[in-house]
């Protein structure tokens, strides 16, 4: 029983990182209706930049975290300028945007490989205070608590930002109908650029937390989370931020539960994707998504 509870707690921690990653993914999809497949590469670079700041720059993690997130956000702006903005007016922008974001992902990964090498690297010991709590037989580390707190506060801030502020309203308006938003005097290009900045900054933050949690960073670590992120945003409903958060938690929990029930890690991803497949058949718009009657 304790073991199961411990697994559930672990699922919660990793699930909150998935959620944070997926929120950024879904934000861009909600506004542009385009998948940004370079999100995982920015996730990787976010983690690696933070590591570089801590290791070579001697910056404390508390400072390196926001700095690396902002750097990831700036990479998002670059990504938008190079790979998405020129294609926006094209009729096949859904497909071509997919490909150009893959091209940028390859370039980003090459940059990560060139700058940081192919080795797997880790944060120096003592970056995060090592402190554990024992509550009724369950072990929780300081790092785990910090991860959940950071991820949760970022997600809450984002939800409030999108739901309550004027700029958030503009983002939703652009997502609803670009042309109508233009007519209402919203600076659509600026809003899209801002969306990319926020989305990528969150992706970078997720990369840092992921790197801290597994204490292992490689130039291709984004690949393992890319598919899971896609699964999470579909599970939650494309474009839905609360859906992405819930989806992330559900995915993290399903992973640890499958391991706990079957006793091996082989079937971990298979169960998750089988569930995803079935959900798509029953509720194509995801758990919290709104269906579109007709795609123009």
């Amino acid at each position, binding site marked *: 029983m304790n073991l199961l509870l411990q697994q559930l707690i672990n699922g919660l921690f990793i699930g909150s990182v998935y959620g944070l990653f997926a929120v950024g993914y879904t934000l861009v999809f909600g506004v542009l209706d385009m998948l940004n497949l370079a999100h995982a590469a920015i996730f990787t670079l976010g983690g690696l930049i933070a590591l570089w700041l801590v290791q070579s720059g001697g910056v404390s993690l508390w400072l390196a975290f926001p700095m690396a997130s902002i750097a990831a956000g700036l990479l998002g702006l670059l990504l938008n300028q190079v790979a998405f903005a020129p294609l926006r007016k094209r009729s096949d922008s859904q497909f071509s945007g997919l*490909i*150009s974001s893959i091209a940028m992902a390859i370039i980003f990964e090459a940059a990560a490989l060139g700058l940081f090498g192919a080795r797997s690297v880790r944060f120096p010991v003592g970056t995060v205070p090592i402190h554990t709590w024992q509550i009724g037989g369950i072990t929780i580390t300081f790092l785990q608590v910090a991860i959940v707190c950071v991820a949760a506060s970022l997600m809450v801030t984002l939800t409030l930002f999108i739901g309550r502020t004027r700029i958030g309203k503009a983002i939703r308006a652009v997502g609803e109908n670009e042309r109508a938003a233009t007519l209402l005097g919203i600076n659509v290009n600026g809003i899209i650029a801002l969306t990319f900045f926020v989305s990528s900054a969150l992706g970078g933050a997720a990369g840092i937390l992921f790197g801290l949690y597994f204490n292992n960073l490689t130039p291709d670590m984004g690949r393992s989370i890319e598919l899971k992120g896609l699964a999470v945003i579909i599970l939650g409903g494309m474009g839905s931020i609360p859906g992405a958060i819930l989806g992330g938690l559900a995915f993290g929990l399903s992973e640890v539960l499958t391991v706990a029930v079957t006793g091996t890690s082989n079937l971990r991803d298979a169960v998750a994707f089988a569930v995803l497949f079935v959900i798509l*058949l029953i509720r194509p718009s995801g758990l919290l998504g709104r269906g579109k009657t007709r795609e123009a």
Partner: protein
Amino acid sequence: MEYLLQFYAIYGSVINFIGINALLALSLNVTLSAGMLSLGNAAFAAVGGYTAGILSVHFNLPYAASLAGGTCAAGLVGLVIGLPVLRLRGVFLAMATLAFGEVVRLAAVNLDITGGAEGLTGIPNVTTTWMIYLVLAGAAYFIAVLRRSRLGWGLVSMREDETAAASLGIPITYYKVVAFVIGAMLAGLAGGLYAHLNYLITPRDYSFFVAVDLLIYNIVGGTGVWYGPILGAAMLTALPEVLRGLGVTAGPIRMGINGLILLLVILFLPNGLASLFERRRSSAVRAEAE
């Protein structure tokens, strides 16, 4: 002649892979021409490849029978998956096929008959270069004919506007399933050829990234004409070798150039490499007229 033989000795495997990749790209093109984005074709190739491999390793069936078995198995799976999945559109279809692909890959990792993560070994090594290109030529001819058939035009009209196509009496679901199954069978055939080319197949050969590569071949080459996917597959499969020949060593720089070329093609050649030929042809026509 000697030079040619030497060239083949060095680049034979690249030439073979160009053929296989082109065949896989063509298999995706069938559904893509109807505006359906499937990321399941790598999985269909896996079904074809593993079936062919199992038929010849465990049941000692001859080459032709194992290829046919692989093709039919992929088609059958395509039918079973296609019927429920094809109600979905756009990104959702892509995601459902992607989820299916992951399930197939993970099944291959976990089953005993497929050899697990190590892969299936000992598949007779009988596919030759001319066979691959014979099949490719046949498939290209088939696609070219298909495009000008009733089914082909129906698929194009569905891509343009599905509701309008339905109102004109085009049997949407039927055409979709037929296109999906044809694509699955072509992919299965390519998978079977690959299995018999390579002596072994592993689950890694058919990951998500392979499915995405097939899409890249199509978009880079151009989806509008039958030779587009072949061009895309040929260029992108040969690119690492060409870069190596130019003295760009492996590692980040070659990877970066790879990405950069992909980016440039997608930004500046909206209809893919095939549009280069189209442009030249149309300007030639214009020159004649003048």
